[in-house]
């Protein structure tokens, strides 16, 4: 295990009691400190099971999971692992435990036995990080979904974790709520080097990650950069997934003869590439290649 690896899974196998099917089969992967990774896969592919392995909510039937070198099966490690790996789940209404926002954020450190003055400091800092300080004394049930998820994240930050795991944390949110949550975790990653593991059904969300893991029927079928993964259209199809809409459009345009960049996968990069192509076509002799901030290749 290299020095910078924070989570490592080796040959994980798992089967729920009473089930005839293997939920996970021989999955190995490692996540480095400061990385943002996405785990994608069809419903029932084992994503959430895998996610629960990351902080010892579930223990593997075979193989080992280590967090910062600590094996999750060793009971004496459980508390420390759960402090280091914070988990945000799908339903914003199931995760807040108290009625007032700041009490909710303080709940974790209080359980860790952190002294009250220190709790106060951590709660204020955590609410500031998710831009919810002005809601500190508000009733948590009255918040929007995106705000509730950000309070849930603040509750984890107050425990000073090293990894945030989001298990489809944006699935029930509207576009604004989703943006709020995603930009919050991305900022935590950039400013604090927080490691982020994002489980998602939205392929577009995975595009912004450093690496993507694809699960299908309990097996890891591919890992790579978003570019590598989302250009494997056949693999995605076989895994009941779909390429992001702009990738599909790009491929269709390329097939029709438009010179679009193969690396264009988002709205912005596809627009750059298309605008460049159209401008070159209308002014072929002008030679002003860099009049549009065209992307390379």
């Amino acid at each position, binding site marked *: 295990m290299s020095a910078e690896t924070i989570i490592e899974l080796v040959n994980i196998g798992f089967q729920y009691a009473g089930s005839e099917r293997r939920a996970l089969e021989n999955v190995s992967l490692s996540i480095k400190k400061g990385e943002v990774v996405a785990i994608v896969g069809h419903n029932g592919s084992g994503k959430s099971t895998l996610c629960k392995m990351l902080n010892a909510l579930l223990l593997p039937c075979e193989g080992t999971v280590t967090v910062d070198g600590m094996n999750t099966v060793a009971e004496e490690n459980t508390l420390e692992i759960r402090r280091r790996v914070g988990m945000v789940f*799908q339903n914003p209404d199931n995760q807040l435990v108290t009625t007032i926002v700041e009490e909710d954020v303080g709940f974790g450190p209080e359980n860790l036995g952190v002294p009250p003055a220190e709790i106060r400091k951590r709660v204020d800092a955590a609410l500031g990080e998710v831009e919810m300080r002005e809601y500190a004394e508000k009733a948590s049930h009255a918040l929007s*979904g995106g705000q509730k998820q950000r309070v849930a994240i603040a509750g984890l930050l107050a425990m000073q974790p090293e990894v945030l795991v989001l298990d489809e944390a944006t*699935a029930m949110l509207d*576009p*604004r709520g989703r943006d709020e949550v995603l930009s919050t975790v991305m900022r935590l990653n950039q400013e604090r080097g927080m490691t982020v593991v994002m489980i998602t059904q939205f392929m577009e969300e995975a595009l912004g990650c450093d690496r993507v893991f694809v699960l299908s029927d309990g097996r890891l079928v591919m890992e790579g950069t978003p570019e590598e993964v989302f250009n494997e259209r056949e693999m995605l199809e076989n895994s009941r*997934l779909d390429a992001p809409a702009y990738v599909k*459009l790009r491929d269709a345009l390329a097939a*029709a003869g438009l010179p679009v960049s193969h690396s264009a996968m988002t709205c*912005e990069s596809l627009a750059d590439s298309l*605008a460049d192509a159209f401008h070159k076509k209308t002014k072929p002799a002008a030679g002003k290649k860099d009049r549009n901030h065209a992307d390379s290749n």
Partner: protein
Amino acid sequence: MPIQIEQLSHTYMPGSALAYPALSDITLTINDGEFLGIIGHTGSGKSTMIQHLNGLLQPTGGRVLVDGLDTREKKLRKKIRSLVGMVFQYPEYQLFEETVAKDVAFGPKNMGLEENDIHERVFEALTLVGLPPERFAEQSPFELSGGEKRRAALAGILAMRPKYLVLDEPMAGLDPRGRAEILSLIESLRSTNGTGIVMVSHSMDDVAMYADRIAVLDCGGLFMEGAPEDVFSRGEELLKMGLALPQATRLVYALRARGVELEHNYYRMDELQSALIRRWNA
């Protein structure tokens, strides 16, 4: 006959200190066999509004007529609920019976139908949602996959043969294939059975692709209403409201910012694709 929403207002806990006006003065008609999309950010009143369509909530002002039946009339509600099928978010959490067939039969049974008729409807509904009865009828609903559970829950509503189907975020939490399956099922209900569809969704792309007409709610009021091309041509206003644009429209805007002007504010990827190819070959 349509569903007519006339000057509908709804205030939660009226007359108390906690009175909260959730809807004000909404007038909207949902035509037979129409696919109406409803969009609006969290708290805009979408859920409050759709709960009026089958009388789960009663107006505190104005009225709602379903095929001419006023939802305020208590004795009409049973009839209204058989006309308007309501599929809430994550309907699979409401599965409760031992077998899929029993679960789907729950609605028709409550309607007081004969055993034979119930049986026929259960088989019909399961077939419609793509869960062949011979394989799924006797399974426990809890052994199904996420997408199958969602479809089983939908079958429970379809077995009541509603004339209108109201769906609140029917694709939330499903994988891309599951989303596509549910959407094409909804679309085929409309095209083959003429079922009127009212779909609340955060996915502008799904609404753009399937809806004949879109109603935009904001702060409890009807902000605008019209065909997708009209609604999505007012992109700036939607963005200001905290809504997203369909991916096709976003690309049109991004191209415009780079000096490439297209004929329309396309809102469907397939149409944008043809337009770009046409332009390239022109």
